[in-house]
């Protein structure tokens, strides 16, 4: 048994101690927005926030998340998240969409840390997130767009 605080709600999860957070979220809590892509932290499809930091949930043991705040795509909220999701929709970033939960979680974490990222900042912050549809042109544009809207509002 592992106790997890996910999207603001405390949940007792019946998983083995070595289960990665990804599979606790997907198989035990049925939060399927967080995706399995590689299982070895090479693609970023499983990205969630742990105490506000982007982490790869496929290599993070569920036990390591105990006592910390886990936020998934289903629960991500606030000004930055809204700006990112709005920009993603305005620019129609998605193609197959499978990696986009992870892309958005990484982008939100990036913008929370670097409000006006340069192209180099985006490269550094997003290079761990693979998109096989190669929507990268629009991911970059949407991050810049989200940064602009956040700057305008603040």
């Amino acid at each position, binding site marked *: 048994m592992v106790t997890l605080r996910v999207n603001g709600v405390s949940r007792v999860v019946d998983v083995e101690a070595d289960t990665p957070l990804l599979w606790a979220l997907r*198989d035990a809590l049925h939060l399927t927005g967080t995706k399995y892509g590689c299982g070895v932290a090479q693609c970023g499809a499983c990205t969630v926030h742990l105490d506000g930091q982007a982490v790869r949930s496929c290599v993070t043991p569920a036990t390591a998340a105990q006592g910390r705040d886990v936020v998934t795509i289903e629960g991500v909220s606030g000004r930055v998240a809204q700006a990112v999701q709005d920009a*993603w929709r305005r620019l129609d970033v998605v*193609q197959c969409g499978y990696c986009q939960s992870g892309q958005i979680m990484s982008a939100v974490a990036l913008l929370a840390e670097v409000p006006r990222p340069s192209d180099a900042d985006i490269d550094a912050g997003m290079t761990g997130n693979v998109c*096989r549809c*190669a929507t990268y042109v629009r991911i970059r544009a949407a991050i810049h767009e989200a940064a602009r809207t956040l700057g305008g509002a603040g």
Partner: protein
Amino acid sequence: MIGRRTFLHTSALAAAGLVIGFDLGRDPADAQPPPPASGVWTPNAFLRIGADDTVTIIAKHIEFGQGSHTGLATIVAEELDADWSQVRVEAAPADVDRYNNLLWGRMQGTGGSTSIANSWQQLRQAGATARAMLIAAAARTWNVPDGEITVERGVLSHAATGRRATFGELAAVAATLPAPSSVRLKDPKDFRLIGRRGPRVDSRVKTDGSAIFTMDVQQPDMLTAVIARPPRFGARLKTFDGSAALWVKGVTDVVAVPAGVAVLARNFWAARKGREALRLQWDESRAERRGSPELVAAYRALARRPGRPARREGNPGRAIAGAARVLEAVYEFPYLAHAPMEPIDCAIHLTRDGCEVWAGSQVPTLDQQAVARILGLPPAKVRVHTLLAGGSFGRRATADSDVAAEAASIVKAIGGRQPVKLVWTREDDIRGGRYRPLYVHRLRAGLDAAGQIVGWEHRIVGQSIIGGTPYAPLFIKNGIDSTSVEGASTLPYAIPNLGVELHTTDVGVPVLWWRSVGSSHTAFSTETFLDELAHAAGRDPVAVRRALLGRHPRHRAVLELAAQASGWGAPLAAGRARGVAVHESFGSVVAQVAEVSLGADGLPRVHRVVCAVDCGIAINPDVIHAQMEGGIGYGLGAALWSEITLQAGRVQQSNFHDYRPLRIDEMPAIEVHVVPSAQAPSGVGEPSVPPIAPAVANALFHLTGQRVRRLPFARLAADGARA
């Protein structure tokens, strides 16, 4: 990939008349419009209109990123005069009669960039017919002539009396009326949605985590299955011991299936741990034991001998023998995995009187038939739920329905006790075969004293994708698998003596179409070799192509557009060079100019790509832009990094660390230009892939003086260019 020419001919005739009979299928249930059930009117197989004004378009094609759901809905909504905000899209059930791909016969399928092309007239008619019935319903209700009624954005109006009604308000009356036997389609000048950017229908669910892929399917008591597969292709299970696997908490079953040994568990993690605990012995007596180096050596030897003719004009051998100058090059292309983001998967549930299947398959009716065969059910008892697919690039279109068949064999092995979701791990995906075949090409050409190409000889060596599948009669003619030579046998350049030959090899590695199929390799060899000839003749690569494309105005137009927009010929920053390529695939023509520098690692850095495309009428220009961008990225990633290699029959790669995908810092800026066209639409999912690798290689030559003979580019650093 099927019968584009025939289809374009037919649709051109249809477009000329603009009044076409309407027959959506042979299902007798469709002959009479059904009465509205709970306020929903179903005018035909592609459309439902609700009393709440919701217009639901039934998509017979899978959505795996290419924007088919958005494009198909745009066509129906255009002829219906619906408002884009009232449009929803739902995946069609598997049905060979109502939802077949019109270019493929009695098969429902998505592939070969045909979704929009084969649906164009069908969906225009579906929308126009429903619109005509709504008008008739309004005319009857208001007692006014049909011709005085206008339709705009989901509302019907009669100007003289000021009457107005929405689709939903008229649906119940429309449902009682007969469908007209023919309808008038819109004049393209009146299009309101086609040719404009309509937002994608799937953006919201794909940005809030609510989109459901096969990986996300949940059913009560559903088990997750993974399969232990043989270490070499063609090996078979000898014995297995699953006792240790069954000790893993959560594991429920260990069963032998044709693909290997399946481990079932209450969750993925337990299934994976259970698989690691299996003890397996394989019979490898009939396994493929050759490695990539042995295959390449054998293929290179074959390439020196004449092959089976795929195209022959004039006498290329004699022309080359008599040429003032002869150039020759041998190219190597590796096996490639598709590696879609969503590893392949299939969920299945045996019910009391049939079976339910959840999959993101490109060929749902083949899956339906394969599952029915394995479970001993009539196909109609197999209900296929087509879900969004997390990419595919061809991988989810196997002639033997490999994944659905595996899922069916597992659920059968446990007696249908519980629903099962079969998941391939990423390692399974990278090592599991069904690759773009390994090929060797040998090209020879002769130039006369004036630098004109007088002869061209192209030999291709590799496995047939189609051989042994039900598609063979369609694609294999005179021993030539057209997917092995397409792009080479269809070379558009006016060269008087031209020969294309094929050696089809027999290797035990399963192969499959990979985004752009034959053009994924033929565009590279033809477009880099032509560039080499241009250089040898001291002529400009764009000028040479333009001069040889006299009979191909669409090629010329995209070439000129890309060249002009890229500033071809204008000076570049120091250390940068441009390269060009143009290629037709799936009825669309794409030209790209890549602006490249040389990285410190000796590999190309691509800064900017200017892309021009002619894909007929542009249904949704923004989706076309997205497909050009994505195809360039997919092709560039493969060209830079990707190769599957075999050592003594074993695949050496396993995951994204050694089968490296393109990442954001390697993505160039991309500028897309869509050529205005009045022709019926052709595909955009694949045609942007072929030109990028040769365009980059041609630019690289200007920086290094070296020609790239072997992909991926990453090999340049390892072993240099080989002649």
